[in-house]
């Protein structure tokens, strides 16, 4: 296991360096003066330009600049927002819980609905159930998030008025953020109805963000189940006269879950990409919306730092998934 971990890290480190080089080059490759872009000052006297250039270290060799940048990154220095002047990492930490909360809910939704759907489709292979589930999964998989989100808002919030349109909680509630997770904070606040409001606000974004993972998980579960169901041991179990529930639930599902776990892990990266659109549509103050807003504000420091942090998070998640998978299925360690 230790060697497996080392092997994974050996891949991870060069990848991270590669990403950091891209992030570092980002400002320098954009059209325009990098000093102006990073300082946010558009009108500068030559002296001021030289001064800022020196402050930012632009007057040193590019390799030194990069190493300095990398050194800063390793110490958690991802730069300072041009607009708010807050460290990028602080803003990230402040907004990340909102994204985690939404992503967790979405993945739970995708798993809770996707796996049973996949199992049913597999058991009733070829039936009308199978066709409906797989057809829906195909539609869900190919649905543009933006369109899907707006459609749900118009129908569910606008016409049916079942859920609020956007945001994390009704603006009537006002309490300090303790954990950053609205579901927990609303309970801690002790305000009547706050938790309910937080849940209501979560429904639509969860469905929208969970749709693609749900479709992927359902399809993956179905094919894994079909494979397992045709194995000898399942046939044996059936022949022994075990009830279908036991055969499918205990014998088959367990083994079918191995590839599904990887799929779920891989969906986390997809999720962060989906969060950019979902958060923008639902005015969800997480890192996805933060990145979009930063683009509109031309806050290059945030775009640069934010991309690197997000890439780092995705890499760590993938590493965790790999390790978890290694634990479940020892065969792949070799």
């Amino acid at each position: 296991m230790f060697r497996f971990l080392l092997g994974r890290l050996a891949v991870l480190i060069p990848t991270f360096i590669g990403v950091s080089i891209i992030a570092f080059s980002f400002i320098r490759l954009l059209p325009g003066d990098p000093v102006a872009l990073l300082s946010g000052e558009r009108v500068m006297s030559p002296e001021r330009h030289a001064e800022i250039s020196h402050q930012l270290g632009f007057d040193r060799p590019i390799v030194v600049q990069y190493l300095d940048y990398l050194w800063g990154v390793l110490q958690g220095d991802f730069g300072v927002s041009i607009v708010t002047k807050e460290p990028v990492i602080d803003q990230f930490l402040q907004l990340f819980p909102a994204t985690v909360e939404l992503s967790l809910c979405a993945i739970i939704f995708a798993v809770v609905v996707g796996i049973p759907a996949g199992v049913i489709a597999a058991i009733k292979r070829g039936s009308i159930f199978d066709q409906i589930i797989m057809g829906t999964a195909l539609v869900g998989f190919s649905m543009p998030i933006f369109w899907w989100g707006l459609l749900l808002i118009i129908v569910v919030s606008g016409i049916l008025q079942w859920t609020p349109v956007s945001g994390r909680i009704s603006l009537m509630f006002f309490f300090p953020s303790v954990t950053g997770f609205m579901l927990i904070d609303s309970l801690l606040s002790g305000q009547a109805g706050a938790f309910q409001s937080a849940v209501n606000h979560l429904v639509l974004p969860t469905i929208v963000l969970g749709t693609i993972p749900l479709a992927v998980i359902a399809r993956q579960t179905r094919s894994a189940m079909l494979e397992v169901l045709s194995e000898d041991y399942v046939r044996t179990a059936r022949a022994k006269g075990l009830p279908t529930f036991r055969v499918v639930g205990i014998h088959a599902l367990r083994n079918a879950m191995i590839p599904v776990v990887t799929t779920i892990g891989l969906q986390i990266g997809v999720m962060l990409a989906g969060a950019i659109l979902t958060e923008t549509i639902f005015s969800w103050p997480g890192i996805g919306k933060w990145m979009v807003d930063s683009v509109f504000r031309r806050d290059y420091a945030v775009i640069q730092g934010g991309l690197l942090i997000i890439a780092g998070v995705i890499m760590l998640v993938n590493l965790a998934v790999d390790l978890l998978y290694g634990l479940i299925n020892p065969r792949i360690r070799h």
Partner: protein
Amino acid sequence: MKKLTTLFAATALATLMAGTAWSKTFVYCSEGSPEGFDPGLYTAGTTFDAAAHTVYNRLLEFKKGTTETEPGLAESWTISDDGLEYTFKLRPGVKFQTTEFFTPTRELNADDVIFSLERQWKSDHPWHGYVTGGSWEYFAGMGLPDVLESIEKVDDMTVKIKLKRKEAPFLANLAMPFASIISKEYADKLQAEGKMNQLNQMPLGTGPFAFVGYQQDAVIRYKAHPDYWGGKQKIDDLVFAITTDAAVRYQKLQAGECHLMPYPNAADVEAMKADPNLKVMEQAGLNVAYLAYNTTQPPFDKVEVRKALNKAINKQAIVDAVFQGQAQPATNPIPPTMWSYNEQIEDDTYEPEVAKKMLEDAGVKDLSMKVWAMPVARPYMLNARRAAELMQADFAKIGVKVEIVSYEWAEYLEKSKAKDRDGAVILGWTGDNGDPDNFLDTLLGCDAVGGNNRAQWCNKEFDDLVTKAKEATDVAERTKLYEQAQVVFKREAPWATIDHSLSIVPMRKNVEGFVQSPLGDFAFDGVDIVE
């Protein structure tokens, strides 16, 4: 555990009590996050709405719904005979907001005014560079560093500003968001504590609403300032719910989750007007789109030719096709919401037959010309290519052949400045400070030839009027001069004026007292919700 229960009970009780006390909350679904809360540092309207029009006041304010100035924190002012010295008498008894982060001990005085302006002006001022990378863009953009001679305190309630040269738009400039008056006492405290950045994060001023808190990219909260010099607001709480997507803003408005929204999608406006729970306000934006002939090149150097072409353009058709009706045909080079707009002037009527005859009379035959179409959409012209195509068809009816040309945007702006440029250029302008000078002199003055004056039009009569108006300090006199200038403009026809786009503000039916600003900003003082 017992402690926790008590805590819960106490909070629950407090919530209940807060719930019973009737409080009016007005929710504005704003279109984006503010860049910061110091209006001097930024140029975006979104930032001004969130900082300048809520928390702060200025020496002068724009009278609601107009581009005229009225007394704000300055109760009155006098201007010396040579027009170089402005003496402002401050309004007595103006209280700064008391917030959780600062309790003021004194009222507004001259120090606050001097601090607010000098920090933007003097590069050695300790607050000049308090935000790294922050620059006082509007202050510089309005040319104030060159115009200002000195800012002096005469006494606690009197400030004297000396100028190097006469500058008629000066008063209008002081009513702009960047000239908001900051509390020097608060700034001093932040400086002493080494927390200067906080000025840009937790603003404190004399305005109608006090800042409560900002959750990045999500919500900004304000409370009515109880001691506001203009009287306490009818609403108790003001909330900016940041909602970047226009379709979502509309849904929130429909669901009653917000009371008012800016910038609707053009396609939604009809449905909004039909919704019995909503009302829609619209008025001409502070902009103009035009077709500028090159008046130095034949045959466009002849007034008759320009007039004939103007009569051949079906403006209403352009407005309908390009703006789906959300614009109005333009008569004058300044929009009708601007002071000094000359109502008497009649627009060229659309009469292709007459135009054809006029062209013949002028001795112009087989004319072929270029029409330049901008490659980008601007508020005053959403689709220049489409407009150019319509003009092409219009001109074809009077026997004029049109070739449509276009360049990359920066190149377009640059190339169209050239004095010997051929053809006529579609372009437009959005006003900054509501002063007619910002249109008439900037776009049509002789000094602007080879620059913003795309018609390359230098008319002595017009230029004299505009220059005289710039130097006059009496508004009535300036109005008269600008009205005359518009008469000259229409007679000489250096442009075909095309349109002023409409600014459209949908809101809940129960919103009262909101006044649309021709300058495009959203201010909520005086707003009420009625049941």
